[in-house]
């Protein structure tokens, strides 16, 4: 699996004395959508926070484009090309929609490119264009999720980490968000690391998947095989 875009090798992450991640090994190839599914508290969000450097691992290695990034500061990880849409969307509530998008492009210097990408985002989500001068906190949940994804895209990431993008959204928004995820991957070639509780949807858009239980990876396979696996069906697909 060498030469992958992102590799986690035996990653161990702790919150104080509590070990949240145990020997996590994941490989992501350029251009694919992979998903990490599992129950609440399994360590999915922690995996993303370890990659982003917010909760650095205590042991193990994380490589991005062949370069060690564990221990690198979060802002430098963004600069390398990894953006995250964290759980709960985390919109800056008192910044306007435009300012939130500007923050997404915080490290970029090409003003013309940023303006163009903002127009692109407004085409993707016309509702955001309508609300561009409104504070982010006044948007509905679905609109905030669109804004959160757009904000991450403004950084032009090579790898996009998405944490529970469908959580708490109305079904119509869930469909829209998954459509957009597919489009971002297909049209821009952005690699996507998707964490989801909605395993059904996640395994439909993803190429490959990992199943996580109490801090460990217990299964890794193509999305199709996982969808057809009896254990996965029973535990995560409600069949």
């Amino acid at each position, binding site marked *: 699996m060498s030469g992958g875009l992102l590799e986690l090798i035996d990653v161990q992450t702790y919150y104080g004395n509590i070990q949240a991640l145990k020997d996590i090994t994941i490989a992501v190839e350029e251009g694919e959508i992979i998903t990490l599914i599992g129950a609440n508290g399994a360590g999915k969000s922690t995996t993303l926070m370890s990659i*982003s450097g917010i909760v650095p691992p205590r042991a193990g290695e994380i490589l991005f484009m062949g370069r060690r990034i564990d221990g690198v500061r979060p802002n430098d990880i963004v600069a390398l090309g990894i953006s995250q849409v964290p759980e709960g969307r985390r919109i800056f509530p008192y910044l306007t929609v435009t300012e939130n998008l*500007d923050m997404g492009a915080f490290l970029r210097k090409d003003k013309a490119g940023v303006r163009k990408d903002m127009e692109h985002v407004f085409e993707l989500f016309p509702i955001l264009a309508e609300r561009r001068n409104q504070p982010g906190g006044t948007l509905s949940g679905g609109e905030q999720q669109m804004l959160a994804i757009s904000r991450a895209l403004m*950084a032009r990431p090579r790898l996009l980490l998405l944490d529970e993008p469908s959580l708490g959204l109305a079904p119509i928004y869930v469909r829209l968000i998954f459509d957009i995820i597919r489009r971002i991957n297909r049209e821009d070639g952005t690699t996507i690391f998707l964490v989801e509780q909605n395993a059904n949807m996640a395994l439909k858009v993803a190429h490959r998947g990992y199943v996580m239980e109490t801090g460990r990876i217990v299964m890794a396979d193509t999305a199709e095989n996982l969808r057809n696996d009896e254990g996965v069906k029973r535990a995560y697909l409600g069949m």
Partner: protein
Amino acid sequence: MDYFLELFFGGLTRGSIYALIALGYTMVYGIIELINFAHGEIYMIGAFTALIVSSVLAFAGLSGLSVLFLAAAAAIVYSAAHGFTVEKIGYKPLRQAPRLSPLISAIGMSIFLQNYVMLAQTSDFLPFPSLLPDLPFLSDLEIGIGSTEAIILMTTAVSMVLLTLLIKFTKMGKAMRATAQDRNMAMLVGVDVNRTISYTFIIGSTLAAIGGVLIASHIGRINFYIGFIAGIKAFTAAVLGGIGSIPGAVLGALVLGWTESFATGYVSSDYEDVFAFLLLVIILIVRPSGLLGRSTAQKV
């Protein structure tokens, strides 16, 4: 009416100074949720720096506005360096610690800085030269405002406008607002949070240094303890306006300045502080988050 105007401008002047210091409290609180008790000392250090530099310059034969500007510049640089260093030594190592720890560290920093100035200089009051120029046309207008007061008001107003522009439109300002609203998310979009926090201390200290030079010129004497009193008042102003809110700090400072001024003028100067703190108590009962504070949606 003349008397009223005199009290009005007196209160406005006093309030402006409080505002310059209160902004430092409120900005730091907004970004790291810490009451920086050492902030009053930063202001005091600004006044001392200006005193030393202006004395040296006067000795060298300079006079007039050049002394004022050089002394103020030195005060700003020296205060900002202290604010920056206090954060790096006293607060940054405690960023993950329980909230009480940096608070105690802040009190320690305050005591340390007071004593360091006392030992390095003196515990006596020192006369402070009147660095601010005279504006004779103001007394001709007869509206009850003196030159010093007018200069303090103008300087404060310009500082506030610059600060607002900086926070609203610059990249650094946006990073500061984003960090205040959600620190981890700010990191996730690439903000260097440590640097942003340092900037916040530097800007707050700069404003405090300007306040220090202005008030020292106005009152005409300083000692190592002036930061404590001014700090308590400015902190009160920040809480009054809603701590964490920048317009709130300015409004709170002006309200406090007027309360003190009118209480002194119409009741008795003995009751100046009584009225100031009574006002604080009343406002906190009616509006616990302060005049312009955001309602208590606590961040986790």
